[in-house]
């Protein structure tokens, strides 16, 4: 899903660069408000975690595998703006060091994965949470659906951008991208739900979006 150089047109690049730039500046401010001077070490280590987690491939079917995106995981644990900031750092470094995703398409990639996958789907999670029963099961179902959506919506946004740029007609690229990512999204949803469930059991204070009374308050002094 990392768009290389040359696939999207100059106009699409410019618009997504402006949006992504503005959102990252806002995200820095929000993260600073929430974390203060804890921001730098914590975000650095969590960004390194996303990097390492993306190296653990999960099996899709037969012998093929996909890798974890992590935007919604970060959003459900740490909130939308911190997630967006972490994804911005991770995507920029993937572009510079691994040539994964083009430099001119970096704005587009941050928009697809950080803003749609992290921020937009965070609000989807908040909306879903209010529909499903207010307990752990309902919460995990909304995490599963919104993480699946984060992959599918990100891929669809990518398809729409390619179509606007005239690279490939929408009627072909949208079904192609969506159908592959519907499958990859299942992996993402399984993993995100398992991770959030595990963190809920061990450090519930780290799951920022879980606010129901049955969350145990974990006191590290007692442990």
């Amino acid at each position, binding site marked *: 899903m*990392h768009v*290389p*150089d*040359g*696939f999207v047109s*100059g106009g699409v*690049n410019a618009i997504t660069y402006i949006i992504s730039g503005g959102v990252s500046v806002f995200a*820095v401010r929000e993260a*600073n408000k929430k974390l*203060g001077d804890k*921001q*730098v*070490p*914590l975000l*650095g*280590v*969590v*960004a*390194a*975690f996303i*990097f*390492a*987690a993306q*190296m*653990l491939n*999960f099996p*899709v079917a*037969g*012998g093929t595998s996909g890798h974890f995106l992590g935007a919604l*995981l970060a959003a459900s644990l740490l909130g939308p703006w911190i997630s967006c900031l972490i994804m*911005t*750092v991770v995507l*920029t*470094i993937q*572009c*510079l*060091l691994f*040539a994964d995703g*083009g*430099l*001119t398409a970096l704005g587009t990639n941050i928009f697809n994965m950080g803003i749609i996958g992290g921020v937009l789907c965070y609000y989807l999670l908040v909306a879903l949470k209010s529909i499903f029963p207010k307990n752990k099961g309902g919460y995990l179902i909304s995490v599963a659906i919104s993480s699946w959506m984060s992959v599918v919506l990100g891929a669809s946004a990518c398809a729409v951008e*390619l179509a606007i740029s005239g*690279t*490939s007609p929408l009627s072909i*690229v949208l079904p192609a*991208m969506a159908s*592959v990512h519907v499958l990859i999204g*299942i*992996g993402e949803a*399984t*993993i995100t*739900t*398992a*991770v*959030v*469930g*595990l*963190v809920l059991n*061990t*450090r519930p204070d780290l799951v920022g979006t879980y606010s129901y009374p049955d969350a145990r308050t974990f006191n590290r002094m007692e442990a």
Partner: protein
Amino acid sequence: MKHSFLDNYSDISSVIHGLDPKVKIIAFFFLTVVCVSTPPSSYFSFGVYFVVLLGVLLLSRLPFHHVFGRSMVVIPFVLMVAVFIPFLKKDIIGGGYNLGIGGLTVSNSGLMVLWNVVVKSYIGVICMILLSSTVPFPKLLKGFEDLGLPKIFTTIASFMYRYVFIITDEAQRMKRARDSRCFGGKWIWHSKVIGYMIGTLFIRSYERGERVYVAMLSRGFDGDLKGKEGVQRLKPGDYIFLSVLIPIVTGVRLML
């Protein structure tokens, strides 16, 4: 454990490695942007860009297999999105090629789109590989900072660089432990195991971040990293590099 998956070969010595990081950032970013803005029909321009990049590659003494091996990263995306375009796009004016197999045709405009994306993405990838293989990562960040990138991004990135090896080691140890217990997962519903691994990895990383923060606080951290040296002055070689590369690229772009 030894990791060199980030800035491999960035510590060898050559003319290109000796240049200032700022100069290399400007040069490769400039080349990428100019290349992407070039109309696909000016074949000569793309030829010149390749020659320029080949020149830099030869001067940098990087092994060819390293650069070409890593440049394969674009292939999945090209395969998924672009390879079918010539068969699908219909020419408005005639001039396609009939392959004569079941009415399969290849259109000129489609081929042009394919050529456009392949050549631009490839040049972009080569630029980024040359940049990351000739500048060690900490110096690259310093270069970006000198060029005016907000400090918060570079400090987060430098912390990431510091811890990515430790956390990757942690992930590799977990993977080894899993494999030695005969995981052998082949299907998507086996992903739950990976989920638990990633969950454990998250908690360990987050707690490491908290410990690092506490350790920093106890050593007087107040939100600002001190001890950064000033902006480095450019050397004559840096000016020569820029004054050769930029006019050639700009000239070729504007003339054709």
